[in-house]
Structure formats: C-alpha cells, structure tokens
C-alpha cells in the first residue's frame, strides 16, 4: 500500500497547502510518493523532494501541462495510479477540478474534502456546509481522496531528500485550450493562510467604506475577507469571499464586521481560533460563534479600534 500525492504548484513554487496535504497523506500510509506535473517545474520537484514524509518524487514535464488542464493531467495520473492504493490531492479548486476525472477513470467513488484520517479506508468529512460531520468508509480497492488543507498541519518543508524520477508524458487533450489567468496580486498575506483576517459584510454599506477595514488590516498585517452579501453587492471582488462558496479560513483571529453570520459564511470561518464580531444587531447569528462580541455601530467602532491599536506598544506580526 502506498499513497500518490498530486502536488499543487505554479511551475515555480509549491503551493503552501500541498504541505498540509502531505501530512494527511502520511497519516494514510507512510509510503508517500509525490507527483509533480507541469512545465519547466524542476524547482518544484526539488522542493517536494525535501519534504521529509515524501519517499519518492515523480516528475512529468511537458508544454501542455503548463496550465494544469485536468483533461491533460487525468490520463497520466490514472496510468500511475495502478501502483498505488490511494491518490490524494488538496481540495482546492485545482484538486476539485482534477480528482473526480481521475476517480471516474478508475471507477472509484471519490471521498471529497476530508478533515480527518481514521484509518486507510475511513475518513471524516463535512457535509451540509460543515453543519454535520460524516464518518465514511469506502469499499473501493483504489481510493481517491481530496483533503481540506486547513484541517491538517503543514509538514516540515526541509530535511528530506527523496529521489526524483521522471515518468512518461501523456498525450495532449486538444479540445480544451487555456486562454488566460487573472491572478489577484496583493502585498497582504493570502486570505487562505493569513494569521489574522478582517472581514466586512453587507453592513459596510458600500465599497468605499471598506477602507475602514483596510486600515485595520494594514495595522494587523491581516488579510481582507468579505461575506457573500458584500461580494454580491459589488463592494469588493469575489476573491475575498469567505464561506461555503468562497474560501474556508482558519486564522488565529477572525474579525467579522457588519456580517450577520449566514450559515454559508459561518461554514467558511467558524473553525478560526478566536472570533470577534462587531455588529449593531445584537441578535445577529454571528454572535453565537464569536468569542468576543461587540454590539456597536461599525462606523464608530472601526475608527476607535484603529485608535486603540495605535496606542499599543507592540502588535504581533
């Protein structure tokens, strides 16, 4: 029994969440092999070879793997899968797009988005937007599993020295063509991995008022989040959305400002270590998950918050 982990990267760097997926993979079985598919991605293969739990790296490079098209990836993974009991990948949009394509080829019922490994065939996964946890056991001999990265600690990023082998390139799937990718660049920490997240909701009233959130996020070196209501109202772009249909975040501190706390938003942030809610409606559901609730008008509270932060001698970064 051994596990094939599909690494997520951008051809230059390994995506941080792959480290969390490696931890989950190593809990399934200690014989973890990592697969790096891409184009001119030797640096990534090297980085993966240094992850201590990884015993072997398989690298496949070709121009048609440059943009991570699932139709190109699935056949090569399916071929390699013959040697493994488990195929795993993080449950980001990359893995969500790819893994079912592999599972169907292998005639396997995929297990999506696990948050716990109980045994090599039994896993815990959230259902109904995290409102229930299901323990599931698969009878498939080959198991396709995607991993919710925030539920596992990242593995060490150095200390390992796994051999790197290359494997055969597959054919190009010509019916799908990559056109472009618009990545949102920011000097701030990434929403998915930030230590502190400050989020605004419909209560912000307009996009301009998000500058109150920005000022606090600057001070705390925090990422900026938003509720779906704020995104749908056009206050902020959708890459900031936290929730079932946005990003799931697990920061040390989550500050929800003017967010009522719809089920779909709570699903994306309620595992945060410390939650603060600032809302003028004392009955808002967000208070039921908040460690510290402040019932106040955000337009008064946020400037005061900044003032109080300015008074502090030190702020953790």
């Amino acid at each position, binding site marked *: 029994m051994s596990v094939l982990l599909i690494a997520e990267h951008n051809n230059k760097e390994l995506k941080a969440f792959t480290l969390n997926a490696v931890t989950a993979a190593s809990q399934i079985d200690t014989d973890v092999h990592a697969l790096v598919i891409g184009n001119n991605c030797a640096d990534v293969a090297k980085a993966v070879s240094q992850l201590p739990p990884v015993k072997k790296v398989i690298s496949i490079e070709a121009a048609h793997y440059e943009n991570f098209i699932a139709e190109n990836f699935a056949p090569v993974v399916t071929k390699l899968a013959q040697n493994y009991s488990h195929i795993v990948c993080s449950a980001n949009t990359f893995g969500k797009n790819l893994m079912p394509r592999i599972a169907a080829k292998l005639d396997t019922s995929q297990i999506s988005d696990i948050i716990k490994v109980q045994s090599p065939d039994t896993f815990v996964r959230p259902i109904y937007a995290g409102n*229930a946890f299901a323990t599931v056991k698969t009878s498939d001999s080959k198991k396709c599993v995607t991993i919710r990265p925030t539920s596992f600690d990242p593995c060490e990023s150095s200390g390992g020295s796994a051999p790197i082998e290359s494997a055969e390139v597959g054919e190009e799937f010509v*019916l799908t063509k990559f056109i472009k990718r618009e990545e949102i660049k920011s000097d701030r920490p990434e929403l998915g991995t930030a230590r*502190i997240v400050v989020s605004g909701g419909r209560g912000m009233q307009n996009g301009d008022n998000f500058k109150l959130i920005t000022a606090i996020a600057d001070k705390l070196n925090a990422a900026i989040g938003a509720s779906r209501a704020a995104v749908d109202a056009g206050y902020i772009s959708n890459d900031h959305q936290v929730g079932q249909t946005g990003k799931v975040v697990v920061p040390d501190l989550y500050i929800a400002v003017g967010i009522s706390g719809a089920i779909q938003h709570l699903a994306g942030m309620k595992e945060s270590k410390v939650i603060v809610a600032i809302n003028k409606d004392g009955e808002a559901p967000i208070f039921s998950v908040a460690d510290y609730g*402040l019932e106040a008008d955000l337009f008064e509270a946020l400037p005061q918050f900044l003032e109080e932060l300015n008074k502090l001698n030190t702020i953790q970064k």
Partner: protein
Amino acid sequence: MKILVAVKRVIDYNVQIRVKEDGSGIVTDNVKMSTNPPDDNAIEEAVKIKEAGKATEVVAVTVGEEKAQETVRKALAVGADRGIHVKADGIIEPLAVSKILQKIVDKEKPDLVFMGKQAIDDDCNQTGQMLSSLLDWPQATFASKINVKDRKLEVVREIDEGLETIEIATPAIVTCDLRLNEPRYASLPNIMKAKKKPIEQLNASDLGVDVVPKIQQIKVEEPPKRKAGIKVSSVAELVQKLKNEAKVI
C-alpha cells in the same frame, strides 16, 4: 444546439439542518426541499442561451426518488422544454449519477451538459467532472461567465488564485458557479404551462447502472460546538481582551 441540464433535489438552503439522534444521517422528514442552488444557475444559463437564439432545446434531467420530479417541474416552469426523471432511491453516489447521466447523454446526444458545481447536501463536487471523464469531453468547472461561440464556448472559471479563462470545444460539460447569473422566478402562468410539458420516467435499473453505494456512511454527527463567548462593552475592552486574554494581537 441542445442543452441537457442536470438538477438535484436537496434540503432547502435556508433550512438549518438537524442530525438524527441515532447518528444515521440528517433529518429529511417534513423538511422543505428545493433545487440545489447552483443547479438553478445552470438552468437559467441554458434558458438564456436558448432565448438568445443559440440553442434549440433545453432538457432538464434529475436522478432520485419520486419527489425529485418536482425539481424537473420547476426547471420546466422557468423555461426548460421537457424533462427526464431517472428514478432511484436512497443515496446515489456521484459516480453512479454520472454513469446514469452518461446513458442519458448517449440517448439524447446533447451538445452541452450543464449542472451546478456542487450539491449543497453532500458537498461532493464530483458529478460534472466524472461525467466529462466518462465521455472524454472537455470540462469547464466553476463557471462564472459563458460565451457561446460557433461550436465552442469561452468560459471564465472561478479558481483560488482569481479567474481563469478557457476555451472548450462542444460537446462539453460546464459546472456552474452561483455567480454565473441571477436565476429567475417562475411566474404563475408558466408554472401552469409547465404542468403540460412532458417528463419522461425511467428507472436507474433499466439503464443498467449499478447504483449500490461504495461508500458506507458509518455515522453522522454534529460538529463540535464552540464554547459560548462573551459580549464586550467597548472597543477599548475588546482590544485589551485580544491583547492580554486571547493573546492574538
């Protein structure tokens, strides 16, 4: 061009679900059910493409128990031309659903298959990709914008890093994000008219697809509750608590 749209009946998204006391699943008796929200976006997009003169027929299909037919009926009320209901009871895993849909595709020969990117009950996010894999068709998942060109689609996809644009040749599968469009409501006259539109009934067993689950649900439980927090009376108190009690800033 013909568009097949797959819809699923799920517990309504506004319902606070309850876990059964014996841990065997979720309470569904006397609970409001409705169409899986992103499936509504899938129907809306197909109907819009037809209204723009770029498609000739929209067929809605569902797989599930007797009452799942309601979701097809709703699709007919917002503009689908006819429906197919494949009857199957109990939990039908995405792999089995995609095999059933593959049979329907073989029969109907659509140019496009649309569905929601994920069902809000099991949160699997698999069926579209699996169907596309079984058919060896292109897939555009998490679509937030679709531009129909001659025998091609340009699709903007929502990905973690931002937005990605791809071009896929038809026949193809598209899974729809909630941001794709604003689904319309069915008007009363259209609900009445939909009652006259045909729904073909099939059984999963007649299609020769094995729907026995391969994944056993051992138990379902409520997530651990957060301990009750406190209300603070001022911003100064909040900052002091964060600094000295929670020690997070």
